[in-house]
């Protein structure tokens, strides 16, 4: 382990050419870690970029963009702009703009903001897709698609779709489906949902 500490507070830029393990990180601007990154609590005003895996035990809060080259494991993840990772495993994910994962994002709760975009599968007990947002495949306990949002495939125990929503592929549900007017989908009630990819 290259850099090991307890508390890090930087007004501007924190640049780590190696790996870093700390308890708490607070940076006003940008954090860039060339190796892996392990922390308990992280708050970054601008951008967090980690080349390898990242693990944040408690809360990861970033005003702008989170970009993880490997896997992200975290408690709560909040990003105002975007979250990019090979895969994300978290208690909660709340992102304003865009979530992009190669293997998928698995969490207890998942929320993408208005006009947001999700690339890669989402697996969560509770999923909320904001107005005018788009998502690919969703595996959810309870899914809420807000007005004019869209999904490719939906596999949910319960699904609530507001008006104007679109599901381009299939929507399979187990218990309940609620559709508002003008919502057109290809839905089917099933006994069992397919296994999620992550």
């Amino acid at each position, binding site marked *: 382990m*290259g*850099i*090991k*500490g*307890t*508390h*890090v*507070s*930087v*007004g*501007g*830029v*924190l*640049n*780590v*050419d*190696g*790996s*870093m393990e700390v308890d708490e990180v607070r940076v006003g601007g940008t954090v860039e870690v060339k*190796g892996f990154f392990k922390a308990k609590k992280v708050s970054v005003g601008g951008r967090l970029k980690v080349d390898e895996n990242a693990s944040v035990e408690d809360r990861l809060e970033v005003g702008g963009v989170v970009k993880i080259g490997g896997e992200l494991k975290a408690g709560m993840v909040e990003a105002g702009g975007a979250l990019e990772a090979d895969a994300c495993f978290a208690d909660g994910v709340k992102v304003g703009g865009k979530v992009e994962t190669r293997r998928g994002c698995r969490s207890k709760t998942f929320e993408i903001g208005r006009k947001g975009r999700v690339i890669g599968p989402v697996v969560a007990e509770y999923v909320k897709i904001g107005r005018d947002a788009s998502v690919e495949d969703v595996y959810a306990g309870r899914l809420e698609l807000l007005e004019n949002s869209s999904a490719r495939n939906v596999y949910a125990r319960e699904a609530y779709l507001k008006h104007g929503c679109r599901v381009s592929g299939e929507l399979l549900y187990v218990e309940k489906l609620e559709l508002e007017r003008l919502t057109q989908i290809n839905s089917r009630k099933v006994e069992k949902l397919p296994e999620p990819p992550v």
Partner: protein
Amino acid sequence: MRIEPRKTVEIDVLEEDLFVGAYSTIKAKTGEAIIVKGNVEFERDCNILSSLRAYSISLENGGKINVQGDLIVEKSVRLEDGELLVSGRLEAEDVDVGKLVKAGNGLKCRSISVGGGLESGGDVDAENISVGGTMSVQGNVKGSRLGVGGTLTVKGLTELEKLEVGGVARINGGIIMDINVGGVFESAGKLVFERLNVGGVARLKVVD
């Protein structure tokens, strides 16, 4: 003993205090070092062409004290408006120098306070270090508290309880419990810390 200004005097061992007049030169009569068991007081600039061991040294007015060898002082070095240039090693209990300290082969003391710059060609071992301007160390730094107003550069490892730098700190890793830097902090080696607080930019580099 009193040395008149602009004189060159040879001294071996002196049991009493020594007053050195301005622009004098002193050197060891036999052996490598001058030994003064009392206090040495310099009027102004002085060239010492060998190592010097003394109980304490002080400088009355401003000036430059140049030691061609080691300077080993049992108690204090006080050059309030002066410069201390030691080609070898500097050892004392307390060092207080107004302008500049250069120690070619490192220094060891309980506390050192320098108004301007501190340059060490070797290791620095001091409990408390306070430098107003720039501090540059070719070797390791070991101590409790280090405060530098301007720029700190350490080529070796740094082992401290607390580091406070107003401007830029460039170190090569080590163990520092509490780091406070106003501007830029750079570490080029393995670094262990408890708190890192940087106003501007922190660059932490690890060479495995």
